[in-house]
Structure formats: structure tokens, C-alpha cells
């Protein structure tokens, strides 16, 4: 069971980026309502009723805040103070040969490493 729903910020709740437009926020809100409505099949076997109600309440809260430009600005500032926002970076599986940890540093060839020892700006 998920314990800390308050860990999700409003953007995560509506599954939109922090740069989302008003229309995108509206769409995210509608999709979230459909997901967490009473009797939603998407939650079957994974999310309890009490939890569903809690998330639904927070979705309403999120939408009421993000639809209002002033409230949204205040919320964004508070969010930035809490944790800086880094636009998502591309991260991907590099091959089908084996599972790789994403965002691994690029492999440096032996020659490049040797060159680095002797050349200042290779």
C-alpha cells in the first residue's frame, strides 16, 4: 500500500509537466478524474478504496490550485524552494543484449584514456 500520497506534487497527481498549459492541466485533470472515480477498473487489485478517496481529494485540490494563475505561481515558487526542477533528460536502454543501468556514463576507449594522459585538450 502506498503510504505517503502527500509526497506527490500537484503536477505528478495530474500527470502533467510543470510547464503544462491551462488546456493540458484541464486534460490531465479529466484523465485523473476518470482514473480515480468510484468503481474505476484501473485501480482494481492495486489501490484501496480509502486511498482512492484520498487521491481524488488531492486531485481536486491540485486542479483548484493550478487553474488559478496566482495560486499556481505561489505553488511553483514553494515547489522550487522545496526541490529544484530539472527538465527530464533522455534515458534509455542502449541495447537488447543485456539489461543496462540507464544514464551510465559513456564508455571511454582505452586509446582515449591513454591520450588523455598525454594531451591536455584531446
Amino acid at each position, binding site marked *: 500500500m502506498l503510504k505517503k500520497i502527500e509526497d506527490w506534487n500537484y503536477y505528478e497527481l495530474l*500527470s502533467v509537466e510543470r510547464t503544462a498549459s491551462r488546456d493540458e492541466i484541464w486534460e490531465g485533470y479529466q484523465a485523473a478524474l*476518470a482514473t480515480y472515480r468510484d468503481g474505476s477498473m*484501473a*485501480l482494481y*487489485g*492495486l489501490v484501496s478504496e480509502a486511498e482512492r478517496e484520498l487521491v481524488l481529494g488531492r486531485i481536486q485540490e491540485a486542479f483548484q490550485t493550478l487553474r488559478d494563475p496566482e495560486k499556481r505561481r505561489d505553488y511553483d515558487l514553494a515547489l522550487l524552494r522545496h526541490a529544484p526542477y530539472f527538465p527530464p*533528460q533522455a534515458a534509455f*536502454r542502449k541495447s537488447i543484449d543485456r539489461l543496462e*543501468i540507464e544514464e551510465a556514463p559513456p564508455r571511454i576507449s582505452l586509446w582515449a584514456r591513454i591520450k588523455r594522459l598525454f594531451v591536455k585538450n584531446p
Partner: protein
Amino acid sequence: MDKRVWAIGGGKGGTGKSFVAASLGLHLASLDRDVILVDADLGAPNLHTLLGLKAGHPDLGDFLTGAAPSLEAAAVETPFRGLRLIRGSENILFIANLPHFRKLRLLRQIRQLPTQNVILDLGTGSSFNTLDFFLSANPGIVVATPEPTAIENTYLFLKSCIMRVLKLYMDHYKIRDLHQKMLDQIEKNSQSIYGFFKSLMETDRSYGTILYRALRGFRPCLVMNKTRDEHDVLLGRSIADVARKYLLIDMKYLGAIPYDEDVHAALRRLSPYYPGHRDAAAARAIRQMSEELAYSIEFTLRTPPEIRLPDV
């Protein structure tokens, strides 16, 4: 050679995994692409029937027993140009309990098949064999139907995949005591994956980060099959969103395949559905989702949506 191994899996039987695999193979072959379909449903193989072929030899069992020298030698031509099939084994009792070394050999040979596209049609359930085939592929496609039973089993399948990925990484980094902790927390106490990571981040942040990154590399796709209205179509989007929040995986919703009575009729005639119904909505949906995955690098290069570690 630009090679792709597709795996079609899912938790529940009867959702249409083999139908999706066969249709995908037929579609790719119709584009002059070289395709090998592998019936990796070790318990109940029947992909050959969906292609209008009879069971027979050579099959996957022949490769595993050594009767066929290589996996490629077990592939048979189909009536469709460019499409070959490796039939499932008739010797089910032998093959369903595949020993570890045979599984590794099979996985290795699947990667080495000299073709652009390998499509694995996996069996139902969450056995280690099925999970490992699913995890070794990219993309791995989960097929579900808009029914509570199928959705429940889809989450179970995804959860099993997650546990398997984490275990593989724990083995790799030799942190086996953590594996026991994971089993205790997630299986016995039904604590969520999120909860497990949260407590792990508090106790051991470095391992938590490694495992979280490993988990983010697992990116299954979802297909909703047999949809009857727009609510069913949107349900797929909701499931992908819930999986992202509660299971912490970046699942891509590929789209929905509308319910079509002709699929059943084609099966009764023992003829494949796709070639005779190319203009039907279900065939269009198959085309759309395969094209999205086959032709764009967007899938592998796409940006994961924003979701941060629990206590950052």
C-alpha cells in the same frame, strides 16, 4: 543489422497475446521485413494455429533437446513471405520446466537469430521463464482486456517483472540480504514498491539509487485488446498512469484494439485474421501501434515523465 526483439506477454490467459503476436508478425512481414515468430508459450503453444499451420516438427523442443542444431534450424517457412515460425513444443511436460542453462541458451540464440524482427509469444502467468523472456526483449508488450480479472493479473505480472529486475540487480551487486528484505516487505506485508523504495532510501541511499535506476530501465508497453467503447480505450491510459505512480515504472500505452467478431470467425476457419481484414479497425490498430514502435526511435529515446525518488 538493426534488430528488435519483441515480446508479447501478460498475466491472464485469453487476452489475445498470440493474436497480437501473429498480427504484428504478419504486418511486419507485409512490409517486406524479415520476421521470425517464436512460440515461447511453454505451457500451451498454439501460435501455429493462428497462422493456419499444423503442429509438427521441427519445433522449439527439437532445439532444446538438440535434435535441431540451432534455433534458426527450428524455424519453418509460413505461407507468408518473409515470415518464419518457430513452433511451440508438443512435449509440454519437458519444456514447461525448462532448466536454467537451457533457458540461457535459448535466450542467447534468440538474440543471435539472423533476422530484423523476432517476436516472442509468451505464455500466461509469472513464471521465471516467462518473466526472463519478457525482460530480455525490447519492447515488451503487455496485452490486457478491459475486465477486472485481466487488470488484476496485469498488475500482478508487472509486479513480478519488477521483483525479477530488482533481484537480478541485487544478485549482480551482491546485495542478497536486501532481496530478503524486499520479499518480506513487498510480498508478505503487501507494501508497495514505492514504500519499499522509500524505506530503502532512508536506510541505504546508494543501493536505493542503483535499484531505482534499474527499475526505470524497465519500460513495458501496454495494449488494451477487445475494447468496445471509448471508456475501454481510456482505461489503458489510466492503467499506465497508475502503474507509473504505484509501481514506479514508465509504462507506455500503445493503444487499443477494438473488439471484432471476425477474429473469432477467422480462428474457426483456421486462417489468420490480419491478411483478410486489413481495412478492419482492429487491423488498423495493430498497424498503428507496430508502426509507432518499429519506425520511431522515440520509444527508446523518449524522455521519461517527471517522477522523482521518494525522498528527494
